């Protein structure tokens, strides 16, 4: 029998094979070879692309290099979204490897946040963790942790150390035995079809009469368009970490096992592929 722990491991070690190509208009001294990399699904683009940056900078003149940014089929990729989310949302139906275009010029100010250093990523990551714990435990768990625990969480995440990260993160996933789950489930629902970046609302894991809420319950409540109507024609896919959990899956279980390291359940709603 497979253990739930294996899910955590599978989620953590999820990798997306990616081919980075330099944007054609970038000026290079010699031809830039594409660069192939296995990107951790749970990480952030700017955290894991040092090698990419170094690779392309070798062929470029120093004065042409400014802040690196990435784009897929014309869409600038937000570094502050987890890689797996970006892939599921934008590219899950395309063939592998994922082709990402690398830019060093004309930073799309209105679409992307700047990422001056790793500290910016850490700040963003930790604020997500804190927000999630505010929802789950009124911030009690994260506030009781010591500074070094916060650091271990980040270092474990940054260095792709599953054990180091989970040694701390498991405390964020606990809840009082007398309750059946967290206070609220930290989740964000993303759709490509709307302008709104994502949906985030307060939603409890357990109904007032003690029943566990399911993924379907959540979608019906906050994003009814994602749920197939009664006639059964499925128009959308509900995707987390590249898989489509059944709508009967309890939300609490999902939050404990399929949350990203930032402790949020990032759910992509994408149109059902036609083929």
């Amino acid at each position: 029998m497979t253990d739930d722990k294996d899910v955590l491991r599978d989620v953590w070690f999820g990798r997306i094979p990616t081919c980075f190509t330099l944007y054609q208009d970038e000026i290079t001294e010699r031809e830039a070879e594409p660069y192939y990399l296995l990107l951790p699904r749970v990480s952030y683009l700017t955290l894991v692309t040092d090698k990419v940056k170094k690779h392309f900078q070798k062929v470029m003149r120093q004065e042409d290099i400014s802040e690196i940014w990435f784009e897929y089929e014309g869409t600038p990729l937000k570094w502050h979204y987890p890689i797996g989310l970006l892939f599921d949302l934008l590219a899950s139906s395309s063939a592998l490897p994922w082709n990402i275009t690398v830019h060093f010029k004309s930073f799309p100010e209105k679409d992307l946040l700047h990422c001056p250093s790793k500290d910016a990523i850490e700040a963003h990551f930790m604020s997500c963790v804190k927000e999630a714990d505010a929802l789950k435990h009124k911030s009690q768990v994260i506030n009781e942790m010591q500074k070094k625990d916060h650091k271990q969480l980040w270092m474990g995440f940054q260095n792709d150390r599953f054990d180091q990260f989970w040694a701390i993160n498991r405390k964020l996933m606990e809840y009082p035995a007398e309750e059946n789950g967290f206070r609220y489930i930290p989740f964000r629902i993303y759709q490509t079809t709307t302008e709104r970046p994502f949906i985030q609302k307060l939603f409890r894991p357990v109904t007032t009469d003690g029943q566990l809420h399911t993924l379907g319950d959540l979608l019906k409540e906050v994003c009814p368009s994602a749920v197939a109507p009664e006639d059964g024609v499925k128009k959308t896919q509900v995707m987390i970490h590249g898989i489509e959990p059944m709508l009967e899956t309890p939300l609490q279980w999902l939050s404990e096992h399929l949350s990203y390291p930032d402790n949020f359940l990032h759910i992509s709603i994408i149109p059902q592929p036609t083929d």
Partner: protein
Amino acid sequence: MPASVLWAVDLFGRVYTLSTAGQYWEACRDAKLEFKRVSAAMQQCCWGIAADNQVYVYVCASDVPIRCREEAYENQRWNPVGGFCEKLLPSDRWPWSDVSGLQHQPLEGVALPSPHWEWESDWYVDENFGGEPTEKGGWTYAMDFPATYTKYKKWNSCVRRRKWIRYRRYKSRDTWAKIPSKDDPKELPDPFNDLSVGGWEITDEPVGRLSVWAVSLQGKVWYREDVSRPNPEGSSWSLVDTPGEAVQISCGPHDLLWATLWEGQALVREGISRHNPKGSSWTIVEPPVAENGIMHISVGVSVVWAITKDRKVWFRRGINSHNPCGTSWIEMVGEMVMISVGLNDQVWGIACEDRAMYFRQGVTPSELSGKTWKVIVSSRESDQSHSGSSSSLLSAGCFFGDEVRGSGESPAPSDADVPSEVGRLRPDQLHPADSLDSKGSLTLDPRPGPPKAGVEETDPARGPGGESQADPATSPPAELPWTNIDLKEPSRASSHTAAEPPRLSLSLLPGGLEEQYSTDDHPMWAWVSGGGCAVETHATLKWFSAQSGLCPAVQTLVPPMTPAQTAAWRKQIFQQLTERTKRELENFRHYEQAVEQSVWVKTGALQWWCDWKPHKWVDVRVALEQFMGHDGVRDSILFIYYVVHEEKKYIHLFLNEVTVLVPVLNEAKHSFALYTPERTRQRWPACLAAATEQEMNDWLALLSLSCCESRKVHGRPSPQAIWSVTCKGDIFVSEPSPDLEAPEHPSPCDQMFWRQMGGHLQVVEASGRGVVWGLGYDHTAWVYTGGYGGGCFQGLASSTSNIYTQSDVKCVYIYENQRWNPVTGYTSRGLPTDRYMWSDASGLQERTKASTKPPSPQWTWVSDWYVDFSIPGGTDQEGWQYASDFPASYRGYKTMKDFVRRRCWARKCRLVTSGPWLEVAPIALGDVSIIPESPGAEGSIALWAVSDKGDVLCRLGVSELNPAGSSWLHVGTDQPFTCVSVGACHQVWAVARDGSAFYRGSVSPSQPAGDCWYHIPSPPKQRLTQVSVGQTSVYALDENGNLWYRQGITPSYPQGSSWEHVSNNVRKVSVGPLDQVWVIANKVQGSHSLSRGTVCHRMGVQPHEPTGQGWDYGIGGGWDHISIRANATRAPRTGSQEASMPPQDTIRGPWAPEESQGTSQPAYVPDEAPHGPPGRRAEHCCLSSCILLGSQLWPQALVADGFAQACAQDGAVRVGAGQRCAGDGLCLHFTRQFALTGGDVGSICPKRGTKKLYLGTL
């Protein structure tokens, strides 16, 4: 803690129980009678006074019967004419007598004491004479009566006698058994009004002794004599004089006994003790307020709660065993009609206003008065289907209205017609469809108002005394007539009856109004007894919220899998994740990883037990460095940095060499030890201590995880795993290597890797089919759930499910020593050379009551110090044992020559932890044994056990899917047993308390309990303590540590012929399915120190040499128990062995079943050992753990772990992972040997620039 139950009586006299594990009130199985009082005791029995004013006892059914032995002696004298005959001399005893010969006792004159008993069998002759079998007929001989008897007939044996025995069995279980009132009618003219049981903690002699106290309507107090487990009914009532007319009485589990007087004062019984459970005198305690006398009282171990006539609740301050009267009253919140103190001084009450039941929350040893009243909203099981709720409404109502007025008159006849009419019109029959829907069950919460949230101490307005929410039309009046209050207000009875017609009519309303009906139909309680109900402070009860959905029947004892684990959504996630990994990774594995793996270091400050003299704890810094490859396999080194003479130094341990991490028993420190094979041989582990328990647990969990990862050991142990337990109660499990039992060069047992499982046990027994049972120090039986982790192993090191709370209780003993001097007698002033006046058992260590701590910081005290009377040698009335001098053998009586005495004090402490164990309630066990079978075997699994009282039990229905089995089958014995073992072919051996062994005949899968016991004398002058049966071998252990092998066992004579001495210095033995023998040795000398309690493996055990020769020493120092009975893994044979082996069927175990030929059931096939003397093993041992020079390899030794190839190819001399490379003294390798393949060779060599660590740089 097993689930226990709360007993209660509702207003209509129906008895219900509520389990601590359940959420519904269940109607008492024997519901024929209506009761006014019940009083429950811990030993699963309950006394009550029924509507007919008779006293009844309800003994809960158990798989172990209550049985009593009747004995009679047949006496004969020899005369020259007829030989031995019944014709005795006139001066002689009766031909049939009791043991003394003074009492005439013909067999037919022995009658059953009451209709509640039945005979188990007919009379038979006892052929066991003091542990020795006698000649047929069981006669013992002597020169004359009365004399010493021997089993041998001599020339001067003039008389003989033999013992006849017959067992009777108590049959009235799970039913109310009427206590026969054969007392003098003049003595007992008036019926009983109240009754209370308790006192079971005063003494355990006889087993299950209870104090049963009762108060008659005339106010007299009575005591029931001789109530105990073997005699649940007791023998007679005796009158205890009181200074006034008593009304009600309450007896605590220990020595507290209070009663209330008619005038409103309380009576306190003084002088209750072990030798005088009835007590000696009464003391009067005045009520808190003079005008409102005490109406009701309930006592616990050290608390007294009372209710005065104005329904106010009071708590008595200052109660302890020296001052049973306490000091003063404190008023508590709430208004109650009655109150009951249960086990652990927990309190229940029935509210005055609405007759709802409340539980006092927050009662702890430090805060005995608790915090708040919390209402118990559990509904009755019968309410689930809206049935039975009004079945005896009217009759009981009439009875209650009537009964209290009367004094001595028979209870009012009930109106037999009405209940049947009501029964016909039960609402569930009108609307059967409504009965189970969720809407219906949601309405079961009787009062969704403020009282549900509990009542704060500071807010007396809300609560039991507050506004009742019940509809006046559907709720009977609050002042329902009851007890002494009722006597003042008898007219109220009519108002109660008047209130009933509308209530009845409600039940006839059509469906639309039925919800209202059920909302108001919460149970209305009249009486509660918590005397049998153990609520733990840490337990979560399901009594306080109305549950929907699950019925109690759904909660099975051992859920093999929870619904969540089998749910389709879960399966799909697992499946999709696997598919995703395949899709996104399979073709791209050659891509570079975005994040390079680096070293992760965890550092901390610990203390280290210095390796050299003077040994002491020194402060050290420790660092755990972990290296992880892309395959996810990790290796680690633990560095311990210390300072000696202001110079910084360190030692290091490779975690892939660590064989066990074991918590160490230490009163003050949170310490643990690390062993490697080398340190095991030295008997000198690396010991580390942390400042806090949390810190130690963090390190232990992290190091353990690292060890497991480097050995790729995770998840559930295999069914063949070897289990062991340390003296601290920690559980360890080891995966046997294939050549652990190889006939030649078995892998050394100091190399075995042990990992810890959560939980706390004293004994663990495994079988080859994955069924594992354990016994706690408190004799609770536990079954392994298939999980792993628990205890300090949280998070990743633990399985998500199958981990449960586990608790254990044990005693700490200290000794009070005194010396006699002619002036003052015995005093605590010893000679200067004497031991400490308060000491441990040896007398060497000082142990005072105040300074003695629980065994480790994990344990907490749960009792006060008490004198232990049950120590070997016996004691006098105050617990003293006498001897001529220290140290000596002690006696329970004083002689002229005795100048010293001692007595033993005990104190209970308890530990709460978690682990993959579920309790097998309710019978406490002293020993357990599971048949050693291979994984492939089919059918139910034979499991035998001995209860803590000495009953032999056979578990039915044990299988892989239901490891806990279903029920016990009691196997009768003529004396208490201590140990049992079942062999691979269902041969069952056992050891009795007298030290002799028994063989059980005819045990087979179709006759799981066999037919009869064959008595097997113990080795000369030795008392056996343990027996273990493997495939064919039978080994026994005596109390002096000698290990014996049973010789001469053949299929036709399974009892064997004699005992052969094998070894001394043995504490425990475990014989496995390959007849392999493992023991816990008492003392083993290592190169650095001596260890006690060491795992040892018998070497050279062969079919033609079943006792083997010599021991191989494994992990040790504090090991207490081992079970290798699951390991049926044979070593893979080499070609040469195959060739030299006899055909499979030439030599077989005597019981090898026919159908096993060529199947998975291993017949015992011997492996001939043509090569080599035993000395060869030492070479092998050296090879696999030391650095070798040269390229000489022993392929058969290295092939097994896949390392030979690596050695051969890179040419370096290296023997196992993590070893220093001989060619390059600075280089270390961290790759596991199991991961090595031909392609990996390059990557482990430092010269080719791969991962390495230079010690010099640190």
